[in-house]
């Protein structure tokens, strides 16, 4: 084995050794239970759809929407770190195998997802075309894998590009190409769709080769790797106090939301509230909570029954709560916070207050569309219970956990 590939292998092992001990906390957190409920609901609606497949079902649209994120958004783990500027850059020409392994692993990691998705889409596709050939299942599956590999390979090339605007252009074009390929696959005859997509992919790859690129754009690769690691750490932090190595990328646009910061009085006892509110805005929490709220509202508007809408609201309130429960742990061991002339207990309380207020706002926001569609005292009651549980959890359970951890 190439010695640099061995470095990659060691780094990968080290990363997973760090991560795996924490997985049991994710499993025991009740998250799996909610995943199971989610899976149960999915199977319930899915089997209903398969048994009563409507002739006008928008399969092309749904299949494209489901497959697109899994095919287009890929993370290629290089495990590059800042110190590699000193230690690995001189060996750049010998890293071919290292990089190939990173790309290959990214591809292999996605195959099971694509298989499962295609496995569930296949019965619907079969019914829409009125065919039933295993060969057909395999051909389309192979085409999906080809599309996946094309996306991973192109993403890697985009990471090496010099001009950021050009990168955005290429990424946008790739997404459009991917959406079009998927949509065509499920809406026109598959041989024609595959031919058109194949030609488009070849043209895209040709254009990729013409773009200005670094052999390896080290700074960008290190930044992207750090971002990927940060995402992973954020996920684990939602369940357990996982030591974060980076603070990830900040939401710079929130700097413009200066007036929101004036919500806090300029007082000593508000210092940590101010700090944790900024941490909420600038880190991933703001984006996650915003996306989950929007997603829940959109799905809620499509719900036909009151019970399903309520279950959905409770599910999303729980997920948002899980995400926010990691807010107090941000910069937990930052020496700068320890040096401030403030009682450290105030930190836990302030973080809990910020998390609780955001959570309660989400509860209210998620309840409004459901109450508008299905006005009932039940829903008001559930929302009230959620608010109480949220305050008790953040002010007492989470705060105590932070102090005793």
């Amino acid at each position, binding site marked *: 084995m190439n010695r640099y590939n061995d470095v990659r292998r060691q780094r990968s092992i080290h990363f997973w050794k760090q991560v795996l001990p924490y997985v049991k906390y994710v499993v025991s957190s009740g998250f799996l239970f909610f995943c199971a409920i989610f899976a149960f609901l999915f199977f319930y609606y899915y089997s209903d759809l398969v048994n009563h497949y409507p002739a006008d079902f928008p399969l092309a649209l749904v299949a494209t929407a489901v497959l697109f994120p899994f095919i287009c958004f890929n993370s290629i783990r290089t495990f590059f770190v800042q110190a590699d500027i000193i230690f690995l850059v001189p060996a750049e020409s010998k890293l071919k195998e290292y990089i190939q392994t990173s790309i290959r692993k990214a591809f292999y990691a996605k195959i099971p997802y694509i298989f499962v998705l295609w496995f569930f889409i296949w019965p619907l596709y079969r019914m829409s075309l009125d065919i039933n050939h295993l060969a057909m299942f395999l051909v389309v599956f192979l085409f999906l894998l080809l599309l996946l590999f094309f996306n991973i390979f192109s993403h890697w090339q985009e990471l090496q590009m010099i001009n950021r605007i050009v990168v955005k252009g290429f990424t946008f074009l790739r997404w459009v190409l991917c959406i079009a390929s998927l949509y065509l696959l499920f809406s026109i005859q598959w041989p024609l769709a595959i031919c058109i997509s194949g030609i488009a992919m070849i043209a895209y790859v040709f254009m990729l080769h013409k773009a200005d690129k670094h052999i390896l754009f080290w700074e960008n690769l290190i930044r992207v790797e750090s971002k990927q690691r940060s995402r992973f750490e954020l996920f684990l932090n939602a369940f357990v106090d996982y030591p974060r190595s980076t603070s990830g990328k*900040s939401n710079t646009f929130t700097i413009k939301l200066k007036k929101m910061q004036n919500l806090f009085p*300029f*007082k*000593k006892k508000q210092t940590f509230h101010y700090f944790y509110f*900024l941490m909420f805005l600038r880190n991933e929490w703001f984006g996650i909570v915003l996306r989950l709220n929007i997603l829940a509202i959109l799905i809620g508007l499509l719900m036909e029954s009151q019970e399903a809408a309520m279950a959905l609201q409770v599910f999303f309130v729980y997920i948002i709560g899980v995400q926010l429960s990691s807010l107090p742990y941000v910069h937990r061991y930052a020496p700068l916070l320890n040096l*401030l*002339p*403030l009682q450290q207990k105030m930190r836990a309380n302030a973080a809990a207050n910020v998390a609780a207020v955001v959570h309660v706002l989400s509860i209210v926001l998620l309840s409004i569309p459901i109450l508008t569609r299905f006005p009932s005292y039940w829903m008001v009651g559930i929302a009230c219970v959620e608010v109480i549980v949220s305050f008790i959890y953040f002010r007492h359970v989470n705060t105590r956990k932070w102090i005793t951890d």
Partner: protein
Amino acid sequence: MSQHPLLQVNQLTGGYSLNRPVLHDIDFTLYPGEMVGLLGLNGAGKSTTIKHILGLMKPHQGEIKINNATYVESPEQYRAHYAFVPETPLIFDELTVEEHLQLSAMAYDLSKEDMERRLAWLLQEFNMKPKRNQLASHLSKGMRQKLMIMSAFLVEPKLYIIDEPFLGLDPLGIRSLLDLMVEKKKNGSSILMSSHILSTIEQYCDRFVILHHGNMIANGNLTDLQKQTGMSNARLEDIFFHLVKDEKKHE
């Protein structure tokens, strides 16, 4: 000095492990309006001494008092008396320059008016005005250091603890910092500064505490050190080399 000392480090023995203390019987004081240089080779114990003074480490023996209060008695009050400029900037990548300063101002109970007045002056003095709303992660190393210096000087404490302040600073930044330290000293604040730039330390500090392998091998003004080493008219740099070389021979 007839005044009451602002910082008292009394017979301090400390370190990371009880079994292996890094510092041995360190003993010195700092009076209001004094600037003291904390000197030593790498690994001499300067940073460990500073960590003990900051209250980040617990002494094995001895005690440290700032304004006659120990950290154990009242951590909040103890910390309100000092501001620290670390060797490596301690910043939050997600906060802007102004937000860092506002965080310090709030924690040290400044009024908003005072903060804005001092902030405007400091931004001007350290050429950081255009960076006011930039994230700390986008600042250069020198600018990060300036941010740390500005945070400390914004709150105007009684005691400044400054660890290797000149690293990464441009010449204008160094000059601004030195001028600021002289001004604060005139106003009665005390400064404990650790640095390897002995010529600057000699020029600006009133007294010097020299550490070597965790022991205090000298403490006094330049004349005291000259007498101790028998090197009349010698410069601080020569005295320092003489002392640490001499200690090396005894090892």
